[in-house]
């Protein structure tokens, strides 16, 4: 497990059962998009077929007739649980029918039979006829993992009986009987394999241990130089035309899709409909159904696919509408997408853009109101972006679409309609650079996403009272530009973090800890946080209003900080 050799097409062996099915489907999508004749193959055991990834992956591959082989080695045990116990349907191959693809049930210990069926399946895939499910019935003659006890759940007799059906021994007898090969030729192959293994072992043992200083290498892709930038300013130039937030991200996506044919978008209703929030309006007519791919409500499936697509050379944009919906795919994001560059020592890159709306408002209630970014910011390997203005949204999305790291791009829904200056010229905003929204000297107030315009209004009100507030928008919470915040606190001595998201273990907690550490002697007052209430979001408008920091709350908190 955890082995990678992408040079020969071995894209990683996961410690998690199931995701390889989705990744193979994603690779198949890449091949279709890039018009390659490659075929993706997922190898998995009987344990995986009871997992949601099997269902979602096979269904998605069938919808789009992807060049994928799903090969199940049914060795009859998932860890120590017999398949006969774990499956309502004791067969695997016949499940293909449920997804509208051909399925085969083979003697997995018969090499020639497997070879023939797989060859047929590859030809089918290359001919554009879609995926195939092949069940190879076999038996696991060793323990689940080396050194584990093996006879509490099965008998030695069963194991010995299956050992006699060794596929290599059977192939050897067949080749000798048919006169297709001599004993010497076959012995030479066995010797060659043994020698290769011995050499590999020798190489491994003679190699030095890795340098501990490299333990955190390859979490992210090597930074790419920012290219094609004509507007370098980190704030929009004066006199720039004004467009909405929604239009700004649409421009970023449309412009990049026009120059980069590897970009495709997946999501529910993002095809002809143009997206629930008009994120892809008009693009379907330009680029068609492969690059603007409508999906079933199958978040784990298409997020898992994006991982396989990214590792095979395309650039997926996953449009999940509401951030709440994507929680079903968090395993794919956290265990696969964010770890893939690290696990492959940087040999694979993960240019995946995962975008969707966040935030509370308009009685959307708790399954359409989540924020979630502190959770994602916790994990290494992800970039987490929360833009608050049209200018930032376009610049950061441009950067995301040109970078090689996975990006969670979270758009505060209540801000989608706001207008702001966005230059016509090309520009991008690099990750990890906070914006000083307004300068001040009496207190620093950090605002994220939806809270930025609220805090700006508060700063204006307080300016009329003679207090000078510095408002900072981190723009990306991972990476977090703590240095800009520290410099501001060194000036003001006072810090308040205003965040609609929950306080416990949140961005405010992180900023507080880092400032208390690096800027302790700069502090003239305790660090304060103002957050949304730690509760699921209620539906009733009055209850909903009570869980979000409002302008009066921010005013009060800022005044209290100034008086501390």
């Amino acid at each position: 497990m955890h082995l990678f050799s992408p040079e020969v097409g071995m894209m990683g062996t996961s410690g998690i059962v199931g995701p390889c099915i989705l990744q193979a489907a994603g690779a198949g999508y890449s091949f279709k998009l890039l018009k390659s004749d490659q075929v993706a193959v997922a190898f998995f055991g009987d344990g995986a077929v009871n997992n949601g990834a099997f269902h979602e992956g096979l269904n998605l591959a069938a919808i789009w007739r992807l060049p994928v082989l799903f090969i199940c080695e049914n060795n009859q045990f998932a860890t120590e649980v017999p398949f006969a116990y774990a499956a309502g349907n004791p067969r695997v191959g016949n499940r293909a029918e449920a997804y509208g693809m051909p399925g085969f049930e083979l003697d997995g210990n018969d090499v020639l039979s497997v070879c023939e069926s797989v060859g047929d399946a590859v030809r089918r895939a290359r001919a554009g006829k879609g995926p195939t499910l092949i069940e190879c019935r076999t038996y696991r003659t060793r323990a689940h993992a080396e050194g584990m006890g093996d006879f509490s759940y099965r008998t030695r007799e069963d194991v010995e009986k299956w050992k006699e059906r060794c596929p290599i021994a059977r192939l050897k007898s067949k080749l000798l009987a048919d006169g297709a090969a001599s004993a010497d030729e076959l012995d030479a192959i066995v010797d060659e394999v043994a020698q290769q293994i011995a050499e590999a072992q020798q190489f491994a043992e003679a190699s030095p241990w890795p340098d501990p200083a490299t333990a955190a290498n390859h979490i992210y892709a090597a930074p790419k130089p920012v290219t094609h930038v004509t507007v370098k300013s980190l704030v929009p130039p004066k006199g720039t035309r004004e467009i909405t937030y929604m239009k700004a991200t649409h421009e970023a996506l449309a412009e990049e899709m026009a120059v980069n044919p590897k970009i495709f978008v997946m999501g529910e209703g993002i095809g002809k409909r143009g997206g629930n929030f008009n994120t892809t309006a008009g693009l379907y007519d330009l680029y068609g159904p492969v690059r603007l791919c409508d999906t079933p409500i199958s978040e784990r499936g298409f997020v898992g696919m994006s991982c396989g697509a990214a590792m095979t050379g395309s650039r997926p944009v996953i449009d999940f509408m509401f951030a709440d919906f994507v929680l079903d795919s968090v395993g794919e994001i956290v265990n696969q997408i964010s770890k893939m560059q690290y696990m492959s020592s940087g040999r694979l890159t993960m240019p995946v853009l995962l975008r969707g709306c966040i935030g509370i408002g308009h009685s959307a209630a708790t399954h359409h109101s989540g924020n979630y970014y502190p959770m994602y910011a916790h994990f290494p390997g992800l970039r987490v972006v929360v833009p608050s203005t049209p200018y930032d949204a376009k610049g950061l999305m441009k950067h995301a679409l040109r970078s090689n790291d996975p990006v969670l791009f979270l758009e505060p829904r209540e801000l989608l309609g706001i207008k702001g200056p966005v230059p016509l010229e090309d520009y991008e905003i690099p990750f990890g650079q906070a914006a000083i929204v307004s300068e001040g000297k009496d207190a620093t107030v950090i605002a994220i996403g939806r809270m930025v315009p609220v805090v700006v209004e508060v700063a204006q009100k307080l300016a009329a009272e003679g207090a000078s507030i510095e408002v900072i928008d981190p723009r990306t919470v991972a990476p977090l530009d703590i240095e800009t915040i520290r410099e501001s606190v060194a000036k003001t001595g006072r810090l308040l973090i205003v965040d609609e998201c929950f306080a416990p273990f949140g961005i405010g907690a992180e900023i507080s800890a880092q400032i208390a550490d690096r800027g302790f002697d700069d502090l003239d007052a305790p660090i304060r946080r103002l957050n949304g209430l730690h509760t699921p979001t209620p539906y009733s408008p009055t209850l909903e209003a009570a869980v979000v920091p409002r302008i009066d709350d921010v005013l009060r908190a800022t005044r209290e900080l100034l008086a501390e």
Partner: protein
Amino acid sequence: MAFEVVVPRLGWSMDEGTFGQWLKRDGDYVDRGQPLFVLEGEKSAQEIESFDAGFLRIPSNGPGDGDTVKVGQVLAYLVAENESPPFPPADSPAKIATAGALSGQTPAAGKVAAPAPASDSVATAKPAMKASPRARRQASELGVDWTKLAGTGSTGRIRERDVIAAAKQQFVSPIPVELPTVPATTGKSVKAIPVSRLRKAIATRMMAGSKETAPVTLTMPCDASNLASLRQQFRATRRDADEIVPDYNDLIAKLTAEILARHPLLTARWGDQEIAFAEAMHIAIAVDTEAGLLAPVVRNVDQMTLRQLAAESRRLAVAARAGTLPEGDLQGGVFTITNLGMFGIDSFTPVINLPQAAILGIGAIIREPAAVDEKIVIRDRLTLSLTFDHRIVDGAPAAKFLAELRQAIEQPGPWLMP
């Protein structure tokens, strides 16, 4: 910090008692464990021992013999030497603080004494001192004792602004001084300004420098062309506009430190029995401020790089002009440099800054024709004015110092190499 002397509880149900008498007088020093006063409880009279040490200060309206006192009532304070007790002077009526609930604590009989104010039982009487980390840092930089300040934070916390306000108070505010009587010979009203604390200090020092020394001033012209070129090189190569570039004072201070090391008498201090040599090369550089002349001290100039020296002298000058210079930064100098060149002054007779032995005046840099290698060329001339105390140094060694300093100014490179 004052410790309160309060009425202890002698038994579980005691709420009040009868004050017997003080066993110490107002102003006496009291050590821990010494008997302080007599208190009669319900059953007996006891001598109450002190928990803390300090000078006893009893308010004038404190209890008299036989008065009823409540448990927790503050009777007096133990303060540090010369510390004012936290009650108003005798002529205004003092409000005796009484503690709130004693948290159910009952000191064991016989061991009772006034609890230290740090304990929560008297928290209502006097809150613990609080200062923000920033205020503490600022206080340390400005030489302000924050424990003496009143905080303006919402919970009484001392904030940076409190420290800065105190620092300004300390250094720039005029103190009320009676003006010398102006003879009213003209009969007209005379305009006057109060003598500030700083003005008074300057006057005292200048009078002492003039009257208590045997001052002699020597002047020495030097060719400062190379020095000017060096300064220009610093200016030309700075990375940004904020980078501090050594000015002439810094350059000359550094060179002076090098030459002074070879002439220790010029940094020595006069005593009637002996002449004490300086232990460190702390050089004062005069700064003209709105409030008056200040000469903050750059420490260990001989151990600093030129850039460090420039940064430090700039910091001191800024603080001096802002009125936030701590007293400590004005002390310990062994030699002073003063510059009037910016006003076009060529040479002058600076006054020795006692207890130092000498002061170097720097004049203007004047571009003028000079004879070099039999040719007339334009060079930068600078004149040095050295006033020294003839009690300590004679004319010839002082002139030798000045000649060597001239040579260093004319060929500065080798002297500035670390």
